């Protein structure tokens, strides 16, 4: 039972049908997330990391659309304390259906990137959390308030009784981030999706938030999908890492494999190009030539080949490599390791 993944995404494709053409934001992404795992997703802008998560929550805004693949979720019916688990495909549900609304927020919760934009400024933070609790749990308003209060205590907000009745704009950046985490946790989700939860905060607040997430994950044994572009945060938080580039998975593996034995040239180049706290200062950093292509002119074949030092002409620019295992847990999509390509 513990080996069946909590979330299993297969060949997910999410396209944006724009007037100018189709943007293939997520173009065949597969991964598994297990209970209790901190699953890191790294990638630069436009790699599709946020769109993948929006697809899982079924909150992709039009003109975006899931055009293929499946999102298998191990659903646990909550009624009468029974714990019969069965697997459902979230792609089959209507985005606004009762089934999807029961899962979204209750079983899969989101910690969004911008805590300021995520709270309503005209309702107190307490009321917003209580609303979420009432929506998903069969409790009275008073009990819901107690749950919200307990959440505030759990995430370490000082004087929680008073903070519950304040508005989001009265809270500092760090407190607001804690409040949004409290809201995400209020319905005991089994999967928490944290989309760049610390990019808007300072490093000391970031350290507090990361520590909090790690502690909550250990206590509740929830899984966390952690999305970021900060390789330092990923190294410190995740146990398993997926690297994305232009809508495709470049590499997956344990955090140690990704940082100490990266297989894909993109992962290797990315790790080399960041200045680290242990290297010689003021030396010329190895760079990745060029810049990320515009999503409308994605290169043919492997999306990284125009910037790749190891690209093979006639191969990498013609065919797209598939994600195949190269180690015990590591998967790489690169022709340097195998010859399997994505069937189109």
């Amino acid at each position: 039972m513990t080996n069946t993944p909590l979330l299993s995404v297969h060949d997910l494709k999410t396209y944006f049908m724009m007037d100018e053409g189709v943007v293939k934001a997520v173009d065949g992404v597969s991964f598994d997330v297990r209970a209790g795992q901190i699953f890191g997703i790294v990638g630069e802008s436009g790699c599709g990391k946020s769109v993948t998560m929006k697809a899982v929550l079924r909150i992709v805004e039009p003109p975006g659309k899931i055009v293929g693949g499946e999102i298998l979720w191990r659903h646990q019916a909550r009624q009468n304390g029974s714990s019969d688990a069965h697997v459902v495909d979230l792609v089959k549900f209507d985005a606004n259906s009762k089934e999807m609304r029961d899962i979204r927020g209750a079983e899969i919760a989101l910690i969004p990137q911008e805590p300021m934009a995520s709270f309503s400024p005209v309702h107190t933070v307490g009321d917003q959390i209580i609303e979420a609790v009432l929506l998903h749990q069969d409790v009275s308003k008073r009990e819901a308030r107690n749950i919200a209060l307990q959440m505030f205590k759990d995430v370490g907000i000082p004087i929680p009784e008073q903070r519950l009745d304040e508005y989001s704009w009265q809270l500092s950046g760090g407190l607001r981030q804690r409040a949004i985490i409290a809201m995400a946790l209020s319905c005991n989700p089994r999967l928490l999706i944290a989309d760049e939860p610390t990019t808007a905060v300072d490093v000391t607040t970031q350290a507090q938030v990361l520590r909090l997430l790690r502690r909550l994950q250990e206590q509740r044994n929830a899984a966390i999908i952690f999305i970021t572009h900060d390789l330092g945060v990923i190294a410190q938080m995740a146990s398993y890492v997926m690297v994305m580039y232009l809508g495709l998975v470049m590499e997956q593996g344990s955090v140690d494999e990704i940082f100490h034995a990266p297989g894909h040239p993109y992962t290797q180049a990315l790790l080399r190009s960041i200045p680290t706290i242990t290297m010689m200062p003021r030396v010329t950093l190895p760079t990745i030539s060029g810049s990320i292509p515009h999503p409308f002119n994605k290169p043919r074949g492997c999306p990284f080949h125009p910037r790749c030092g190891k690209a093979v002409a006639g191969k990498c620019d013609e065919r797209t490599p598939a994600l195949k295992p190269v180690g015990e847990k590591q998967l790489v999509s690169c022709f340097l390791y195998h010859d399997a390509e994505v069937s189109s």
Partner: protein
Amino acid sequence: MTNHPSASLRTSPIAPSPHHLLEVKNLKKYFPIRKGFFRKTVGNVRAVDDVSFFINEGETLGLVGESGCGKTTASRCILRALVPTAGEMIFRTKEGASADLAKLSRAELRPLRPQMQMIFQDPYGSLNPRMTLFDIVGEPMYVNGVKNRKERVERVAELLRLVGLRPEYMQRYPHAFSGGQRQRIGIARALSVSPRLVVADEPVSALDVSVQAQILNLLLDLQKRMNLTYLFVAHNLSVVRHICDRVAVMYVGKLVEMANTLELYAAPKHPYTAALMSAVPVADPRIKTGNVELKGEVPSPANPPSGCYFHPRCEFAVEICSKDAPLFREITPDHFVACHRADELRLSGIAQ
């Protein structure tokens, strides 16, 4: 005054030296808080509160701190984008004269402006979308006396090549370029009037990781070629370590520490610096960081705590810390710190 280890060490970093390009002495910038019908001043936000430091010619000084610590306000005062409330900013001009930027009038500042330029954080917000690259990069030259169009075209082409862009792009508009390329345009604009001091306010924080390295390399390369002096304002401590010769740390409007980069990172003397260092997530899963947790929140610069501003969050605070503000003094040569207990504390930096 606390005990001094040696009489030759300075009590303040404002002793003049011929190597200094800029000396900032007791710089203050207060923003008044006004209330009521008569807009009476009821208090001040002390964004920059008695800050003193210097920058040597040809070096990079990093100014770090968390949001709201006053690092951007301080850098804007130096460029006189803001008028400081008090203090001196002695700039050594190209001709070798000394000018106090804080006292000069707008007209007197004008001939000095080309010597001090700025690189901005947001490459999307800092370029006018209705101007071509030629207009953007050429405008500062035009304003400063290069009225001949042909000459400007030649100089712009040269500058674009210098920052790694093709001169043929001169007639294009900024929207045709990616974030990294836009940042190169901003750098070309700053360099168009041959500045000596360049203030770079978070120049890479809006860029993707793979592009960040290109811009850092460019900044280092340009510094070598043109003998530029950088004031590098940033919050990413890994980037600061990579590019800066010396680093100054700010907390709630005050400088708490200033030292050679490697010394500061290996052996910080101020508990706040040590806490900042330990909060940096290292991109190696085998090194676990974040062991020192800094409790509480950054105080408001409108209502700072008594004594040392850091004392309510400091695990080493003693009685004197809540009473007297510590002096910003030299503890070992070129290592300045504002902490009562700097001589006795043994703080750990980042393991090398």
